[in-house]
């Protein structure tokens, strides 16, 4: 049989969780990570990252809107997916997805963005014209009181929402890790460390994503990158990444030392079918190289331009590395037979429902949504500062 090595159970030839299921934890990870970065400013008073606060929230929202789409495309019967809300199965981790997702989307992210932007939305509803005015008017949700007292209430409520949001972000992505970690039939997935590794890798990818986006967009806008902000983000990225990498190494060392019945099969897979995506892309280029780059910026005082370049390269490599990590978890977990006697292969199709084109589209879609959101709700603090200076 083509693509099969050794003996696999005959129903294992087809690999059911495709690249779309790789995208799903990748996208939700970006959401959770971006939100946690935003919460640094709001809850932990890290004022240096303020320039990215709103951008991080809008990034999280753009990715969160797209997060369920890979699942929908993957389902054999997407029209039945509302059943997960109406008749959820209480013992299924996946059944909780709908609720965690809705909670996070509506109660945390959208609410926080609305609170933070309410003042601006009311102002823009007054100053804009035509259709845009109507859009902003709807977005005020009838709440146009922008007295100092009302804004103070907004501020307090927003603080509470962020506080609730942090455990929610952990819940959102920890739960995605649990979906894999709780499958006892699959030794590649079954690990209580899985949710923790997913949370930390989510933070790493989200922080890297906002850092790269901020630097790229600021450059495109012809503005100056706030180096104090980027330096702080890079520092957080570095420390989070160290925790993430340590956890993954702990998992690896534990597996090697225990060497249970599945070890030989999984070890062979890592040295053959997963060698490029795991060893080369994930570990070497996606983890060790960015960690070294970030470490250099932490210990050596480099000029601004060099730091910017190193951050950009480290951020981009991190994003590729975390994607590779999701790939290795999802696809790697299906390449070997549960008989531990053989392997199957995964070939990504081009134009099918779960093919390459759809996945590229779903990866780019959040950026399109972000572009619209940024146009509608400008997140920039430098414009304001400039306007403020001019007014003074």
């Amino acid at each position: 049989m083509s693509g099969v090595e050794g003996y696999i159970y005959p129903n294992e030839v087809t690999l059911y969780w495709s690249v779309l299921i790789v995208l799903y934890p990748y996208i939700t990870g970006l959401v959770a990570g971006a939100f946690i970065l935003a919460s640094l400013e709001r809850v932990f008073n890290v004022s240096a990252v303020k320039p990215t606060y709103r951008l991080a929230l809008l990034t999280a929202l753009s990715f969160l809107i797209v997060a369920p789409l890979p699942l929908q495309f993957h389902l054999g019967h997407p029209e039945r997916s509302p059943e997960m809300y109406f008749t959820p199965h209480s013992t299924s981790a996946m059944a909780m997805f709908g609720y965690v997702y809705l909670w996070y989307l509506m109660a945390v992210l959208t609410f926080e963005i609305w609170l933070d932007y309410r003042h601006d939305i009311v102002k823009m509803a007054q100053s804009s014209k035509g259709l845009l005015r109507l859009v902003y008017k709807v977005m005020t949700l009838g709440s146009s009181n922008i007295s100092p007292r009302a804004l103070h209430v907004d501020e307090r409520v927003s603080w509470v929402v962020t506080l609730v949001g942090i455990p929610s972000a952990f819940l959102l992505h920890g739960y995605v890790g649990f979906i894999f970690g709780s499958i006892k039939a699959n030794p590649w997935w079954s690990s209580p460390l899985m949710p923790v590794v997913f949370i930390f890798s989510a933070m790493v990818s989200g922080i890297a994503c906002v850092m790269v986006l901020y630097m790229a967009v600021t450059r495109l806008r012809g503005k100056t990158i706030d180096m104090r902000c980027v330096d702080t983000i890079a520092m957080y990225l570095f420390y989070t990444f160290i925790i993430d990498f340590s956890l993954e190494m702990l998992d690896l060392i534990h597996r090697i030392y225990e060497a249970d019945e599945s070890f030989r099969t999984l070890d062979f897979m890592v040295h053959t079918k997963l060698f490029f995506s795991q060893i080369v892309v994930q570990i070497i280029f996606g983890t060790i190289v960015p960690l070294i780059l970030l470490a250099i910026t932490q210990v050596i005082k480099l000029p601004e331009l060099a730091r910017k370049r190193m951050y950009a390269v480290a951020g981009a490599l991190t994003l590729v590395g975390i994607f590779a990590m999701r790939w290795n978890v999802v696809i790697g977990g299906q390449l070997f037979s549960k008989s531990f006697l053989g392997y199957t292969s995964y070939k990504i199709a081009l134009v099918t429902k779960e093919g390459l084109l759809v996945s590229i589209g779903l990866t780019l879609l959040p950026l399109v949504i972000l572009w619209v959101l940024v146009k509608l709700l400008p997140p920039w603090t430098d414009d304001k500062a400039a306007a403020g200076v001019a007014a003074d």
Partner: protein
Amino acid sequence: MKITRRQMLILLPAAAVAWEHVLAGTPESSPNYKLSDHWWSMLIDVPKCIGCGNCVRACQAENDVPDGYFRTWVERYHVSDENMTNPVVISPNGGKDGFPPVAKEDEGKYFFVPKLCNHCADSPCTQVCPVGATFVTPDGVVLVDPKYCLGCAYCVQACPYGCRYIHPQKEVADKCTLCYHRITKGLTTACCEACPTGARQLVDLKNPNDPIHEFLRTHAVQVLKPQMATGAKVFYNELDGSVR
């Protein structure tokens, strides 16, 4: 309340649709069959299996199983004296067309192992289903409701035995039903009926007269992957330790 003829004409089709919806979950009627009187499982007598593939063919014909997918299949194990924990296993086309002959010079032992859904009492596949489309019946059979299944394949990932697949046309999870449509009418399964040596036997653990009770008492009987603690109910007589 007065209903006009016009209202009646509108209401009737709506009522018919609603009634059909109410009836949708009703199982096919089986008079005299009481769910609580049975607890179905299967006995596989490994030394009796000759690898003829009759069971696989009968299952595919009875249940319209698509080509390349298997509700039941047969594996041939070759275990050599030097490497007892690493058997060489084959199952060409699920054993449907039998097996190639064994070379005379090959050492070690050969035996056949029929596989099917283990109809686990604590089945991981039903645990993970997000909508409860797959479930354990009160008489101990794990089934899938094809009208309810989302086709997410989480159950396929959760089954330690590789017994599930996504039906390529229906796009829902599919697996052995223990010929539920037959056993609830007093028949045996298609695979058991087709087996020429009696290597597969349908058993009812709640029936005190079923010979399985005597068999379990007097034979060394195992289930597959007992470490998975799934409450597997397909019992294997004289199962070799190398079988996965």
